Structure formats: C-alpha cells, structure tokens
C-alpha cells in the first residue's frame, strides 16, 4: 500500500525527519506513536506533500508520489485528516463534504457515498446546513473524517484524531475507524496517546527526535506497554 | 576599518559640486532634503515594520511653518524650523496615538487616509497655506551672517543637516530604543512580554519620523523659496516611501542611495517622455520582487553570502 524509505524532511534549513522508513500493508491499521515534538506531524505533512522531502521516496501502490503535488497525490488514493482538522469553518457541513465529492479519486476500488458517511456519522445529516465552525470539536472531527472518506481513499492517514476530544467521542470515532478496514481501507494512525493506538492498531512504530526508534510487531502492544524502559523512553516516567 | 572610507566619502562629497553642473548640484540638494524625510520613513519601515504614507503631511507642515513664520509673520527662519518640528511632532503624536493601534495593511491605508485629509485641508485652508497660489518670497537662509543663496552653499548646508539627522538616527538605532524597535518588528508578542511598551514605542518613532519630515520640509521651503499644495500631494508621500524601499529600509546609507535614486533616475528617464512612468513602475516591481531588502540591503547580502561561503564550516554555509 505505502512504502517510505530514507525520508528526510523539514522546514527551511531545519531538518526534522531523519532517514524515516516504514511500510503499511493492504488492509493494515498501523499506528505511529511518539511524544510531542517527535516529528509525527512533520511526517504526515511530508506524506501529503505539504512539505517537500529533501531525500527519500514515498511509494504508493508501486507508484512514486514523492514529487507529486498534494492535490494530485490525493487522487492516488491517499486521504488525510490533518491535525486540527483543517475544515472550512465558514462553509456548511454539506459544502465541506461536497468539495471532497467533486475532487475525489475516480475509479478507485473504494466507493463511499454521502449516504454511507451519514450512516457512519448521523450527525452529518442533522447539521448539514450549519457552518462547521458552530459544531463541537467532536462533531467537527466526524465531518473531517467524512470529508476524507469521500475522497475515496484506500489509505487514510489520521493525525491525532483524539486531540482535545472527550473519551466518549474518542471511543465512538475509534469504533468507526476500526470498521473502515472492512471497506478496504488501510489506516495510518498518528497518535500521542499509546493507549488509544494500542486499542485499534495491528502494528506500530515509535518515533522520537525525527527518527523511527522502535517497531511494534502484531500482538506486541502489550509487551511494549508493560516494558517500563520503553514507556519511560516515551512517557519519560 | 570604516574611517578611511569615511574620509574619502567626505572629500568626494566636498568636491562633488565643483565637478558637477549646477543642475546636478540642484538634484543633490533635493537628494539631501529627501534623505532627511526618507530617514524617518526608513526608521518606521525598516526597524518597526510600519508602512507610512503620511510623511508628505509632516514635510508640508515643516514647509508651511517656515513659510508662514518668515513671510507672513516676518520672524526669523530658525523659529520656522523649530515651529515646523514641534508642529509635526505634536500632530504626529495626536494622530499616531489612535492610528498606530492598527497594523499591516490597515495601518498603511490609515496613514494614506491621513495624507488625503491633510491634502484636502491644505487646499481648503488657503487663508493659512495660500492653497494653490501658495506662499512665495520665502527668504534665503542665513547662517552666521552668510546667506545661502546658491545651490552650492545650500548643498553644503543641506547635507550637513542630513548628516546630523543620519547621526541621530544612527544613535537611535544603535541604542536601547533601536534594539527594542527591531525586537518589536520581529515579534510583537515577544517584545510585549519583555516589557517593551510596543504602542508607546511605535508612537515615539512615528513622532521622530514626523519631526524629520518637518525639518526636511523647512529646508525645502527655504531652498525653493516658494511652497504650494502642488508639492505636498499623495505622490510625494509615495515617493518618500519609495526612498527607503529602493535603497534598503533598515540601512542609513540605503536611504541615501534611495534618495539619490529617486532624484536622479526619473531625471534620466524623463528623456523617454511618457514611457518613463512605465519604466519606473517596472523598476519598483523588480526591486520588490528581486531585491526585497533594497539596493544596499541586497548588496550587503551578496557580500555576506560571499563572506559566509569563504569562511563558514561546511554544512553551515548553504541557506
């Protein structure tokens, strides 16, 4: 699905990511965990093409997208829910979603309709003509996920979907995310909160200071969480 | 290291009017007058990040103060300078206090609105300003019994005044206030957190800029001997802004270069007739796009880059 190798990226002269490499298989849910400032968001931005990597390659389905501009890269089947959601607050829910519909990938194997996303998040139907900025954080997160799904991705990247949300909402959202696998969507979940990540991810990578420092194999979450030394390196406890 | 340069510069400056024709001396006098007004605009733009289009107002106030004091009231010229400076400063304080709460575009447009209002009033209050007819027969400046009645003598006087203004601005920039200004320009919030009274500082510099404009206007009035609204239009405000932009806002030599540019280049281009406006507009565009730090700033950058590349350790040189 996605294969990243030797990726260096940053802002201006400041290199944040150093030689990052990992892969996501078809139908996998992979978590990327790390402390604040570890470079997770920078990695997400590089994957989307919002910043240009200075070295390395990003391969999507055997197709090199390293230099493909963001708006076109999204049509190769990648979709993303960025940190802080990045919705258009002045526009209505319906308008936010409509823009995804008209710019969506054509001819991919995934096919989400408006009815589908409304079934996942009934709130969308209820609030469809109110401006997004009037919605609560949790509702906005749902609209953001719906918008990403309407791009018809087979790989969904989510940057800190639990940020600032009440646990109840987080659970609800996680439930939906888990179900996406059945629709043929692979998932890269970027999380600061290992607990959440461990709940739904098959595998994981731990990031620190811009490097992948540890890989968590399938079924390895428990042993990672119980390894005092590991958690200490991460939580600093 | 700087001294030999300075001596060469002073010698060249002293000899220049003897070599050049009268016309060019005349332009150099204007360059001096514009340098003084431009220094103020440069202070605001280069060190505070404020675009002002109101300098023509204070330039006009200096000029009118000198004209009214010497012609209508028959008082000594030195009083005209003082009144011009005080009037400019006081008005700048009164207007700057509310207006300088704005930032960016909005501040620039607000200063433009001030300039438009002032221009309308200069026309309207013709009992004071003479309106279109203006005020003529402004006496030549006398200095210790020596009358500055030729471009040559005025050249020396105006540039000495300009040099004093440059020295004062240099001191200001090099001192505590300068540091605070540049800090404020780079990050308003951080400056506030460090107890820099951002608004007070902006108003202060606005006043300094206005006083420089006033001095410049007084010099202009005495040099040309005649003032009218035609000299204080919005074009003048734009011209004063272009001086630091073209030369390099944050550098004092940059302002001088800008003033020389603005007096000599249109003069050279005027041979092109109506075409010169196009060339001038394009020149401005090119400077803004390609040399964002002005002529002097860009040259400095090149020099610095060259220096960096020759001295820096590998890995630090490339930007």
């Amino acid at each position, binding site marked *: 699905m996605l294969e990243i190798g030797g990726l260096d990226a940053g802002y201006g*002269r*400041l290199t944040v990511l150093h030689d990052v490499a990992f892969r996501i298989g078809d139908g996998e849910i992979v978590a990327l965990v790390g*402390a*604040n*400032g570890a470079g997770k968001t920078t990695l997400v931005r590089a994957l989307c093409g919002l910043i240009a990597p200075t070295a390395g390659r990003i391969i999507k389905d055997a197709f090199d997208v390293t230099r493909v501009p963001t708006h076109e890269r999204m049509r190769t089947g990648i979709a993303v829910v960025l940190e802080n959601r990045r919705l258009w607050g002045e526009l209505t829910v319906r308008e936010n979603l409509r823009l995804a519909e008209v710019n969506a990938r054509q001819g991919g194997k995934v096919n989400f309709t408006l009815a589908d996303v409304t079934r996942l998040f009934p709130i969308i139907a209820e609030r469809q003509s109110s401006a997004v*900025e*009037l919605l*609560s*954080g949790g509702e906005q997160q749902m609209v953001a996920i719906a918008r990403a799904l309407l791009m018809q991705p087979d790989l969904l990247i989510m940057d*800190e979907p639990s*940020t*600032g*949300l*009440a*646990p109840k909402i987080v659970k609800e959202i996680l439930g939906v995310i888990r179900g996406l696998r059945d629709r043929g969507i692979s998932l890269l979940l970027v999380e*600061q*909160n*290992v*607990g*959440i990540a461990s709940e739904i991810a098959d595998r994981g990578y731990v990031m620190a*200071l811009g490097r992948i420092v540890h890989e968590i194999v399938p079924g390895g979450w428990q042993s990672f*969480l119980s390894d005092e030394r590991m958690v200490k390196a991460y*939580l*600093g*406890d | 290291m700087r001294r030999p340069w300075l001596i060469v510069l002073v010698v060249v400056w002293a000899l220049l009017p003897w070599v050049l024709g009268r016309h060019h001396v005349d332009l150099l006098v204007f360059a001096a007058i514009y340098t003084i007004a431009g220094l103020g605009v440069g202070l605001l733009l280069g060190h505070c990040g404020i675009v002002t289009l109101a300098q023509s107002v204070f330039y006009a106030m200096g000029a009118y103060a000198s004209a009214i004091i010497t012609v209508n009231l028959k008082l000594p010229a030195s009083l005209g300078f003082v009144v011009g400076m005080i009037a400019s400063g006081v008005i700048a304080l009164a207007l700057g206090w509310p207006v300088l709460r704005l930032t960016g575009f909005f501040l620039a447009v607000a200063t433009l609105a001030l300039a438009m209002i002032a221009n309308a009033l200069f026309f309207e209050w013709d009992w004071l300003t003479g309106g279109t007819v203006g005020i003529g027969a402004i006496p030549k400046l006398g200095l210790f019994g020596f009358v500055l009645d030729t471009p040559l003598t005025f050249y020396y006087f105006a540039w000495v005044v300009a040099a004093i203004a440059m020295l*004062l*601005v240099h*001191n*200001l920039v*090099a*001192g*505590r*206030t*300068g*540091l*605070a200004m*540049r*800090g404020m*320009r*780079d*990050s308003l*919030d*951080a*400056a*506030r*957190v*460090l*107890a*820099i*009274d*951002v608004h007070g500082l902006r108003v*202060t*510099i606005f006043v*300094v800029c206005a006083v420089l404009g006033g001095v410049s206007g007084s010099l202009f009035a005495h040099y040309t001997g005649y003032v009218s609204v035609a000299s204080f239009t919005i074009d003048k405000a734009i011209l004063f802004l272009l001086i630091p932009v073209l030369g390099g806002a944050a550098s004092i030599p940059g302002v001088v270069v800008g003033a020389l540019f603005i007096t000599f280049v249109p003069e050279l281009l005027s041979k092109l007739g109506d075409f010169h406006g196009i060339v001038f507009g394009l020149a401005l565009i090119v400077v803004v796009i390609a040399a964002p730090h002005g002529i002097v700033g860009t040259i400095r950058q090149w020099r610095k880059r060259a220096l960096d590349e020759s001295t820096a350790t590998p890995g630090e040189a490339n930007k």
Partner: protein
Amino acid sequence: MTAPALDVRGIGHAFGGLTVLTNVSFEVPAGRIVGLIGPNGSGKSTLFNILNGFLVPQSGSVMMAGNDTRAMSVEARSRVGMVRTFQTPRVFEHLSVQDNIMVGACKLTRSGALSNMLSLPRARRDLALMREVAEAVIERFGLQRLREVPAAKLTSGQRRMLELARAYAGKPQLLLLDEPSSGLNTAEVEALGKWLQTFNDEGMTLLLVSHDMQLMNIASVVNVLYFGEIIASGPMAEMQRNPRVREVYLGM
C-alpha cells in the same frame, strides 16, 4: 504570609460559542515551581494567554502578588516581573543571540528615544549595562559560541535556550514557561530541569506547562487541566497514581 505570586480565581472563557475554560482556579505560591498539564486542546494556551494579559478573561480574575491584573497590560505585567515563553519559541529572528538577550534586558533600563538619539551619557550607560547583563547571561547559558549568530539560524533547541536566556536577562520574579522542553532531546531536557531548579533556588517563581513528565518532576504541585477544568492537583507522583488523570491524560 505573603500573597501568592499568582492567584487564579474562577477563570472562564469562550470563543464564539466554544467554551474553552470553565471556572479555573489555582495558586502559584511565591518561590515555588507549579506545573500545569493536560491533553492537547484542553485550554492551556488560552489560560496562558489570559495569565500574561494577551487575552482578557470573560469571567474570573488573576491576582499577581495580591494585585488585581485586570487593568494591567502585558507590558505592565512584565515590568513588575511576569515574563513568559511561547510554545513555539518567539525569538527575534533578525537579531543576533547577543542582541536578543539585550532586548530581554531592556526592562532593566529606562532611557528614552531622545537620550538615545543624542547619545547622552545616560543612554550609553544603559546600553553598557544591557551589554553587561547580556554578557553574564550568555556566559551562564553557555551561548558564547553563538553570540553573533542571527536567531533565525538557530536549531529549535537553541531557540528554546535563547528564549529562556532572554527571559532570564530581565530578571523576572515569575516565569511562565509554555512547553519549554518540546523539541529538546533527553539530555537537553535534563539540563533544562537543572536550570529551572537553579532559577527557583535563586528565588524565581515558575509556572510550567509541559507534556514532559520527566521535567514535571521538578514541580512541587501539578494541576491537571481537562476540558477547561482543573480535575486534579497535587505532587506529580500522586497525579500519576490518580486514576482519572491516568485515564484522560496518560491514556492508561
């Protein structure tokens, strides 16, 4: 009994319809290190902006050493000793490290624009004092090698250090630190903790917002902010055992 360096009483704030803080109250006793933790988006930044005066709270009050700060501007608060740092360090990009620190020392001097222009003895004295202070700070923070480097060229860790050094140059009584350890590596965080400890030993009061549990250990009291409310407060060790904190913040 002296008044606390900072006494936060019932702060509430909303942006448009979105409530960010509801009835937040806590104290920062003089001479102590107090921590503030909470998940992203829990309102820490808003609270910080209210404390130092960037935002006016819609309800509640902030008392600083017993004085109401309602009428005090950011600058005024800084003048009486409250300095903060920013989540992303705000250094003066075009100024050298030394000049940055000198700007921090501006508040120790008074000379105005006029005396600067005329280069009066007073202005020269002020500049010399600022330079002296900056020199001492540079030495103390080990920034000698970077003295002439423009801040724009610093790494994020160096920027953090510079911001801290700059704040320190103004000899603040109360320092608010917003995520001072983010972007630092483990060794640097350790060093930072030691710095802060020494500052505290010298009598400086600190309010520390951080995700870094290691750094949080220097705080005598930690307040946990969750959805605009303080849900727990006490020593860090206690907080780590607190089930509610474990659930909402540590995610276990």
